[in-house]
């Protein structure tokens, strides 16, 4: 056999012996998606809103509209196509876990999405002529939810966020915007004095535009032009610093890593510990917060059904890598993290997340811990308090000792036998 033929044969052998190489989608092992709900009505119209009468809207404030339902149904169909070979078409709780924040529009979005993902086929058909089947959606009340809704109260987070807006940059933002705020306050008829209020108004105006309502003339000079940049910045504020990100999205990422790791350690072909597909139904802030926490947030307002996709691949028992995508249009675009473009090692991803990832117990402890040393003023106050306390103690000891001497002295004046009287 000629010598040059050998490498060729080897290559051929490799190709035929391992038809399921890492380039094939069949080593896909787990998928976690997180999306924003579909189209909704404004959460709250502004004071001078010409469309503040409920009759302008098909459903109550902040509720999912028919367009929103359909948009999620379509996204469900997109998932079905994307994961046709990965996710069985017959529903089983062993394959999929669906979680939502405990809000009507996200719960309904998840339901509409599942109608697109799991149209009943075969044994799932329970009623002829109805292309829907019930699938449980899990949630916990927002005030208890530190993972997805991230609305569970956290003292330390609130303090840190308040401080953020007092820093030089955000003070400057307020300064730069003082005319804009004054203008908006005047015409909206309610106080707009920070970028969060501004974003609320921006959001309402966006929805009204999407619904083909003519905006009042005063908006022409500011919407979207002048407002857009600040509305987008507002989405970055929740996780602006590592400390903020840690308390806002740390529990979610901790759970994500744990879930992927558990799947990775499961031997191939063995019974899986957890469903292979996890859906999270949430909000624009959730999307922005998660992206920003991993340094992948390009400033924008996450649109309806914006989706982050985490895909875990497991080519062999001991290797696993992940790909992350962001889908805010029809295409899912890969997210590049720091020095990894794609097929990033799971351990590497875990390392990237280690500064922010924390479990719920740690989260609870950190939320309730006092912040003392992060600012010179606090340190100064603490020092004064310590000095004061020390002075007090010294003073107290002095007084006690003096009194003790006094009482000792007086004891000697007592008659020796009176003690036993």
């Amino acid at each position, binding site marked *: 056999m000629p010598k040059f033929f050998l490498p060729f044969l080897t290559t051929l052998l490799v190709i035929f012996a391992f038809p399921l190489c890492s380039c094939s989608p069949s080593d896909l092992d787990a998928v976690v998606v997180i999306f924003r709900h579909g189209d909704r009505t404004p959460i709250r119209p502004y004071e001078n809103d010409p469309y503040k009468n409920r009759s302008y809207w*098909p*459903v*109550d404030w902040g*509720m*999912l509209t*028919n367009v929103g*339902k*359909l948009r999620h*149904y379509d996204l469900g169909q997109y998932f079905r196509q994307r994961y046709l070979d990965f996710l069985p078409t017959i*529903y*089983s*709780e*062993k394959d999929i876990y669906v979680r939502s924040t*405990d809000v*009507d529009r996200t*719960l*309904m*979005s998840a*339901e*509409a999405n599942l*109608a697109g993902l799991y149209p009943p086929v075969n*044994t*799932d*058909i*329970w*009623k002829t002529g*109805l*292309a*829907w*089947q*019930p*699938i*449980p*959606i*899990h*949630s*916990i*009340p927002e005030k*208890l939810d530190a993972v997805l809704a991230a609305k569970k109260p956290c003292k330390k987070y609130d303090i840190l966020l308040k401080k953020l807006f007092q820093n030089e940059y955000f003070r400057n933002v307020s300064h730069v915007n003082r005319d804009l705020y004054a203008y908006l306050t005047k015409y909206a008829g309610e106080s707009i004095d920070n970028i969060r209020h501004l974003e609320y108004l921006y959001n309402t105006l966006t929805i009204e535009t999407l619904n083909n309502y003519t905006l009042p003339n005063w908006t022409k000079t500011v919407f979207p032009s002048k407002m857009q940049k600040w509305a987008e910045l507002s989405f970055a504020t929740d996780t602006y610093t590592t400390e903020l990100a840690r308390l806002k999205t740390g529990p979610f990422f901790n759970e994500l890593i744990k879930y992927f790791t558990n799947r990775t350690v499961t031997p191939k072909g063995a019974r899986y510990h957890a469903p292979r597909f996890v859906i999270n139904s949430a909000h624009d802030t959730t999307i922005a917060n998660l992206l920003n926490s991993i340094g992948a947030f390009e400033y924008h307002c996450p649109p309806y059904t914006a989706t982050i996709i985490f895909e875990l691949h497991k080519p062999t028992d001991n290797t696993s890598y992940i790909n992350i995508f962001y889908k805010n249009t029809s295409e899912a675009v890969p997210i590049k993290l720091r020095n990894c473009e794609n097929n990033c090692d799971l351990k590497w991803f875990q390392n990237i997340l280690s500064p922010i990832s924390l479990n719920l117990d740690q989260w609870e402890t950190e939320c309730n811990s006092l912040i003392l040393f992060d600012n010179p003023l606090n340190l100064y106050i603490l020092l004064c308090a310590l000095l004061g306390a020390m002075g007090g103690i010294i003073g107290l000891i002095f007084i006690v000792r003096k009194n003790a001497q006094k009482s000792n002295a007086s004891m000697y004046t007592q008659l020796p036998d009176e003690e036993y009287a």
Partner: protein
Amino acid sequence: MLLLVLIVVFSLCNDLIQSERNPKQIHVLFRHGERSPTGTYPNDPHKGHKWEGGLGYLTNKGKSQMYSLGQNVRAHYENFLPRYYWPAEVNFTSSQWDRCLMSAELFGAGLFPPHDFQIWNSDVLWQPIPVHYLPRNLDNLVAMKTNCTKYDKQFIEVQNSAKVQQYNQDYADLYNYLSQHTGKIINNIEDVESLFNTLEIYQLNNLSTPYWVNDTLMNEMKIIAAQNLAIYSETEYMKKIKGGFFLKTILDLMETALNGTKDVPTINTYSGHDLTIVHVMRALNLIDTLKPNFGACLIFELYEDSTIKVFYWDKWNGKIIEQILPNCASPCTVSNFIEGYKAVLPVNWARECEL
């Protein structure tokens, strides 16, 4: 003369309106639909049976039943229920178990099929309806499994009570018989109940039952299953902690609706278990023992004049029977209800659980 006719006609109409008057608010508590077994036994011939949807999940029959229950409730309240689903008017609460969450979705699908402008997708004549629930350890209302120290202590006392010991004495032979045939030790009424549940599901799905099972045995086991469900609310205190909390919650909603202080949903539904229904009906002193069917349904109606009516549907397509509340003086108004059931209405649930 004309005036007289007018008066007669008017009073007749008035009577008609009176007899067909609509409630102001309703509360619908139901047991989930038919499910697959959650347990089996060593000699079970159907151990390996492949159930649609997996173990403990609704069967397709169960799905249809819950959808039909929704349709039947809609038909019963045709003049009262709004044609369109508005989230502010309706609340769907469930126990955290998947079969209850799914039952709630199905019940909602039957109760509010989309019409006209609410049809969002002509391929799917269904609309999404949100279902809310509390985690098991916080759910006093539907799952009724929240930790309660004082209750747990009383429950242990009940398990050691003369009554339960008498049960065990009376059923000793039966326990033996069942243990022998199932290959599993059965030595209390709870074991009998679990076995009954599994065998009942086989019967409902036309799966053959072994030779040692017959109708007499099934009837006896059903009675014992009902006795087991009842011991969880044996004492007045236990009734207060379980079903009483449910009653207290719906009474608060009724009072709020009457006072008009806050907008509360007109239609309130609760997707629970057989035990949930037993807890509530025992708190009301409506039953001693009962083993509710799949899709059984208990409805509370509140009227503008503050009267309350209670109905029980024994299954998804069952007969609707009005229940006369023994402790509520006629006319059964909210205040008479509260007065009559004072003993089982918790004031501060958490505190009442402290030892």
